[in-house]
């Protein structure tokens, strides 16, 4: 009888553990309307709704929507430019208004914020801005880290009927060990995707020593912004001086810029840097159910069955 009671308690405990295990503790923020990319006529007004929703397990959260200038980080990532230093003639930021710059979202619900863009008549090419959606600033406490998730909504508008210029300039080619960096700037008035850089190195005898090409960028380079193409020369290449030519291509192998320089490859441990072009694609992890979850599920099923058997007896 005692063993039956013990079994009974064990079953209940197992069920409790299973219940706790299936309650999600994570929080999910979902954005519908993630990129506004369109051709627009000068002098028109266009709107773009963005709907933000929270999972039912999250806390009530206040989100701020902020219009920023559109910038590229060295690796091509999109970064917001503070309005005080956003001076690009192709910035859409001054012409964007939001109907609600701040929303409070309850768990399991959503809020829609609409951006209105007044397309100017005196601008050629494209208009660009980022709408940054972030929780109201939180203060970190204790000895640890607080994690915040935010979203950037790229606004990329092409003004119809205006001349589009897609040009670029290589600002510099430098070497550090066997790592060569090519700084490239979009000097046009329109963005371009898939930019890539080919480096060709010739030794002192005029013979080609290496030729390396980056993967195309997945992000767009917007007017006035720069990226750094970082490439690693094969370490079997002899150290020394090389005449290097960098050629940056756009979509369909269009040459955007080319430049030459003399660089020196120095021996020693080369500086391995992540290229700005192709960040790694991680191996997807199981997301829905962890092996522990499966085990708990099986245990709980066995426990429930045992409980029923015991109760019937």
């Amino acid at each position, binding site marked *: 009888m005692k063993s039956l009671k013990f079994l009974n308690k064990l079953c209940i405990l197992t069920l409790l553990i299973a219940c706790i295990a299936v309650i999600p503790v994570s929080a999910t923020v979902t954005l519908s309307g993630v990129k506004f990319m369109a051709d627009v006529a000068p002098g028109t007004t266009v709107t773009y709704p963005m709907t933000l929703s929270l999972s039912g397990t999250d806390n009530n959260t206040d989100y701020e929507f902020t219009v920023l200038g559109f910038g590229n980080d060295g690796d091509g*990532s999109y970064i917001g430019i503070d309005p005080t230093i956003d001076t690009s003639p192709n910035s859409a930021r001054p012409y964007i208004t939001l109907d609600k710059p701040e929303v409070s979202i309850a768990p399991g619900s959503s809020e829609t914020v609409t951006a209105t863009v007044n397309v100017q008549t005196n601008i050629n090419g494209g208009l660009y801005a980022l709408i940054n959606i972030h929780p109201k600033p939180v203060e970190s406490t204790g000895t*640890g880290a607080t994690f915040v998730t935010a979203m950037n909504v790229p606004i990329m508008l092409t003004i119809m009927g205006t001349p589009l210029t897609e040009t670029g300039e290589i600002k510099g080619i430098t070497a550090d060990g066997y790592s060569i960096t090519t700084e490239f700037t979009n000097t046009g008035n329109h963005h371009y995707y898939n930019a890539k850089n080919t480096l060709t190195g010739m030794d002192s005898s005029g013979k080609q020593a290496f030729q390396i090409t980056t993967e195309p960028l997945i992000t767009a380079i917007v007017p006035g912004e720069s990226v750094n193409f970082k490439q690693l020369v094969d370490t079997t290449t002899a150290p020394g001086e090389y005449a290097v030519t960098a050629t940056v291509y756009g979509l369909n192998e269009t040459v955007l810029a080319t430049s030459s320089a003399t660089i020196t490859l120095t021996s020693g441990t080369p500086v391995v840097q992540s290229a700005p072009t192709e960040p790694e694609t991680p191996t997807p992890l199981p*997301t829905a159910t962890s092996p522990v979850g499966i085990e708990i599920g099986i245990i709980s099923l066995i426990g429930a069955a045992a409980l029923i058997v015991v109760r019937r007896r």
Partner: protein
Amino acid sequence: MKKYTILGAIALVMLAFMAVPVMADAAPSTSATLSATGSITQTLSLTNSAQSFDFGAFKEGVNEKDSVGTLTVTSAFIPSWKVTAAMSDGYGYMRTGSGGATGPYLANKLQEYNYNAATPAWVDAHGLKFTGSSSTTMLESFQQTVLISDAPGSYSTVVTYTIAAA
């Protein structure tokens, strides 16, 4: 028995009505137009399994580290997206009231075991490319080196993950 026969008859009559196209009063027609509508909504979801993480009491000369959780991105109709990470001090050091930690805050580079300083280089390390409409999960794992030169106090930081469609 009789009841079932009546019910069966009613069902057969109803079936007949459903199967026979309605012809009465319909104008003769040689073509039909099917109107269909549909829309595609681009969505991005970011799920963080951890809201915060506490190292607890630091021990001198010890690399405090732990796995924090996972960051999951789910996309629909987005060819590619990118997640970037930034620390509240802008440089990659945990802060206390009077200053920052001497050693940098380190982040595990995805599933690899090497830790990287959580400086802007860490952003590169967390950069991702993903094509299609599916989910990807990244492991979050952090480390803080505690040195004898670190001042007493509570050290903290805010890590912001920002996602954007490319």
